[in-house]
């Protein structure tokens, strides 16, 4: 399953990174729309992003997204069109993502 998502990197004045990540591959912990804070701290999942192009002036770009864990174990139902997630580096929220479409 391939998942195309829009990723907006938070800027430093929003508490985000100094700059968007360089390179094509990026992986970190995600928090999904359906998770409460408590649920997230008990059972979190990592996403792997294959970033497409470079971020625009709003630090937004698209990425192909998948769970780090294999699909048999990961909650793939959380990645549906229009569903949202946030990416974290530890306690720091670094990006917001929205699923655009699901492919094969």
């Amino acid at each position, binding site marked *: 399953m391939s998942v195309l998502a829009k990723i907006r990197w938070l800027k430093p004045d929003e508490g985000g990174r100094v700059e968007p990540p*360089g390179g094509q591959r990026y992986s970190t912990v995600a928090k999904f729309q359906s998770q409460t804070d408590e649920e997230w701290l*008990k*059972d*979190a*999942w990592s996403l792997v992003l294959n970033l497409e192009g470079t971020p625009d002036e709003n630090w937004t770009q698209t990425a192909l997204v998948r769970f780090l864990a294999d699909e048999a174990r990961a909650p793939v139902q959380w990645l549906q069109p229009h569903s949202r997630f946030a990416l974290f*580096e*530890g306690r720091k929220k670094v990006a917001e993502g929205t699923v655009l479409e699901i492919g094969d």
Partner: protein
Amino acid sequence: MTQMSGMTAPAQQPLVPPTNEAEQAGQYAGIVLPLFFPAGEVEETVTLFRAVSREEAAQVPAEGAFKAGENPLGGKFFAETAQDAAKWGDMLQGSGNYEVLRVDLPKSAADSLMRWERLDGIGAARYGELSQINVPGLGVSK
């Protein structure tokens, strides 16, 4: 999206009787050991584990500090057992392409790391920025 709020304090890992080499290393997870400083102060340490590339496995023990890696994160993830670190190594590096480092951190530093009870369906994990990890008293071994 729900706003993030307070974090839980790290919990100690229960000991499990080791049955193989990885579990023998894993038995140290969460063990608190005294760390002696020259001034005579003593700080406890917490043992964590991290699956790393061959390159990082050579660099970190030699230099005594972690560096930013290929994944452009500001920090590093750690497992609380060697077995769990190996599972992440299998997923991230591929079987046989990594080594598991044992990392002894002063308890105050370990307690400051972000902790999830379970990550990726594997087990407890912690994340720390380099400034939280590369502290006096950091011990790294293979």
